[in-house]
């Protein structure tokens, strides 16, 4: 008969081991679905793959099919997005019947293609569905976003805030251009009720951007196919000029070897700047002492209740005055809220004292 300790320990061991096996098996259920990017070698650019760097789009065309398999975490997220997409499409269909006037959701995923000047398909994609009301047609794109991200997306321009959402407007423009429809509709799945947002191809410079995407896709698909066949990197489009693009590019350093430009800090060598820097650090302690002393004196004077006070050689006089306040409710204030760029400058001496008496 084993001791109770041994039994308990073995139970714990079995439970831990079972948990490990369950976790590993769940990961495996996603991993078995992963087969690289799961695509055949491409001859065109996918509408969802707009990138600020045309060279990257070209390499995507050439070697995107050889991308390593997605990790289980990414596969799980994509699967969830796909399932939510089906749910929301069904929800839209039901909403169409309840709406006044009614609208209908026609078709499921619908492929579109855009041809370049050469007559070849250079840009292709798949719209999630189409909403039709009378003669009006909207191409619909369903996106699953984190609630925190979705909260910051109120207009199509807001997609610019995050590098991973930047391709979304280009994808929609491509849909609109490809299907020759003026309006598109984003359904943003954000956890609770979905957010809906309209995209107008004629608004701002959307049409121009759509055409720029088409031109870039044509260049990328032509050079990409040629690069895959010949292996000659010199035929690829120009490198991106934004180092941030390179920093997050999977081809950086392997299939793409861009130069990296950097600009160092501005160097203040002028005599008056050097003098100002010297004075700043020499007087920093005196400045702090001065501020503290002023505060002590003023606080005491205010607390004395008198309009006039004397300390040593100094006379402190208090004058009462009125200012106008505007106690505006928060919700009214928020209506006038706007982001204004400000600049904060801080001074520091690395490896040296910045605040205390050593600064002297």
């Amino acid at each position, binding site marked *: 008969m084993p001791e109770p300790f041994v039994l308990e320990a073995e139970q714990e061991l079995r439970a831990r081991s079972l948990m490990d096996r369950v976790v590993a098996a769940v990961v495996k259920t996603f991993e078995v679905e992963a087969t690289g990017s799961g695509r055949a070698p491409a001859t065109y650019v996918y509408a969802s793959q707009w990138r600020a760097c045309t060279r990257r789009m070209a390499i995507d065309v050439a070697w995107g099919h050889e991308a390593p398999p997605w990790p289980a975490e990414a596969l799980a997220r994509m699967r969830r997005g796909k399932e939510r997409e089906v749910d929301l499409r069904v929800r839209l269909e039901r909403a169409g019947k309840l709406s006044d006037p009614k609208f209908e959701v026609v078709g499921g995923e619908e492929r579109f293609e855009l041809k370049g000047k050469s007559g070849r398909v250079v840009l292709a994609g798949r719209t999630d569905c189409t909403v039709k009301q009378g003669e009006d047609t909207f191409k619909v794109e369903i996106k699953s976003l984190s609630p925190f991200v979705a909260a910051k997306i109120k207009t199509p321009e807001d997609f610019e805030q995050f590098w991973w959402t930047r391709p979304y407007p280009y994808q929609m423009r491509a849909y609109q251009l490809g299907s020759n429809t003026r309006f598109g509709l984003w359904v943003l799945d954000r956890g609770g009720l979905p957010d809906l947002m309209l995209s107008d191809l004629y608004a701002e410079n959307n049409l121009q951007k759509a055409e720029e995407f088409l031109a870039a896709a044509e260049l990328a698909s032509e050079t990409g196919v040629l690069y895959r066949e010949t292996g000659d990197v010199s035929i690829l489009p120009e490198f991106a000029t934004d180092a941030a693009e390179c920093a997050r590019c999977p081809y950086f350093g*392997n299939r793409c070897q*861009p130069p*990296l430009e*950097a600009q*160092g800090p501005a*160097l203040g060598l002028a005599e008056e700047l050097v003098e100002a820097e010297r004075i700043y650090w020499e007087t920093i302690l005196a400045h702090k002492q001065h501020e503290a002393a002023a505060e002590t004196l003023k606080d005491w004077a205010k607390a004395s209740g008198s309009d006039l006070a004397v300390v040593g050689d100094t006379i402190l006089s208090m004058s009462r005055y009125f200012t106008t306040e505007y106690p505006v409710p928060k919700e009214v204030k928020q209506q006038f809220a706007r982001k204004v760029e400000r600049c904060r400058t801080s001074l520091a001496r*690395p490896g040296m004292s910045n605040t205390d008496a050593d600064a002297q």
Partner: protein
Amino acid sequence: MSEELFGRDYSDADPPPPKEWEEEIPPPEVEPEGAPIGDTGLTLADVMEETREVKRREAALSIPRMIELDPEKALRQVQALTQILPTLQRAAIAATLPSDWVVMKAKGQSDEDATAFPRKPACLQFRRFFGVSIRNPRNIDTGKPECRVTEYEGVKSVWSDRDRKKVPTKVRARRAEIWVDAYSDRLADGIEAVRGVRSSTEEFIGRATEPQDLEEAARTSADNKATRILCGIVSKPVGELAGIMGLTVAQFIAKASTGSGFGTSEQRETARQEQGGHATSGPVSSHAGEFWSVVVEAFGGNEQSAWAYLAEMAAFDGDKGKVKPKSFDHLAGNNGWYRRTVEKWNTQHPDHAFKGGE
């Protein structure tokens, strides 16, 4: 006119003897030249070469040539540079984290005497502060922006089940090389054709077999090498770095990536994961055997069950998945790991607590 620039006296018209700096470099005493330093992609031979290059460049900042062309301008530039350079170096170092450095020391050296080598994140900071642009990355043969990839017969340490250790084995290896130029707009100085090279025989973290990873590593190596040489920061004493970052040497080393002189790679790996610091390379606890007896006794003498349980208890989540001791000796071979396992055991099983070593 000041005759002392960069700590050297240039009043003498003759330039310093060209080989003077070579004598200043201490002989290697850390580890064999071929061994890599942490994940910096550097070997000691590289460090020696880069240090020589930095000194060669310091000496050859063509002071005599600049003075010949425009003495006043040369003086102003050099004075300004002399003043700014240490500030830039300090600022660049202050912007790094201890974990951006690999610390190494020779046998018998104290922690205070250890030396730190910058890793990739540190080099990125240097590039920012010195305005280092990497230009014209290329295959030196074709001039095209791509790596030169060659296959060759290499030697790699491969685990041998028969010998129960890694043994040098001939393998078909792949080498990726790339050359870059670099220019610092703050130093108004550049360097050409710096070679970055990585081979599939080296130890890699992650997907080592992918050719793209090798090429990417070669590019990183070239970029970082050029940056280190241009900025003159190939290595730094730990004390100096800790001072700039406002840390003590012990705090710095606890957070830094540790290399040679700080235990075996296995000990360092487990200690980093477990303690968030480095392992002490002291003797293994002499009480480990007694602890093992206590555990086995708790399992009624069943060694198999005892070990299965203890191994599970000692395991922790590491970067590359769950880290489990391979044997009790493996566990006891790391002081930190062993100590924590004993603590865990004693907390969870006070009735079978191990009192040894008190």
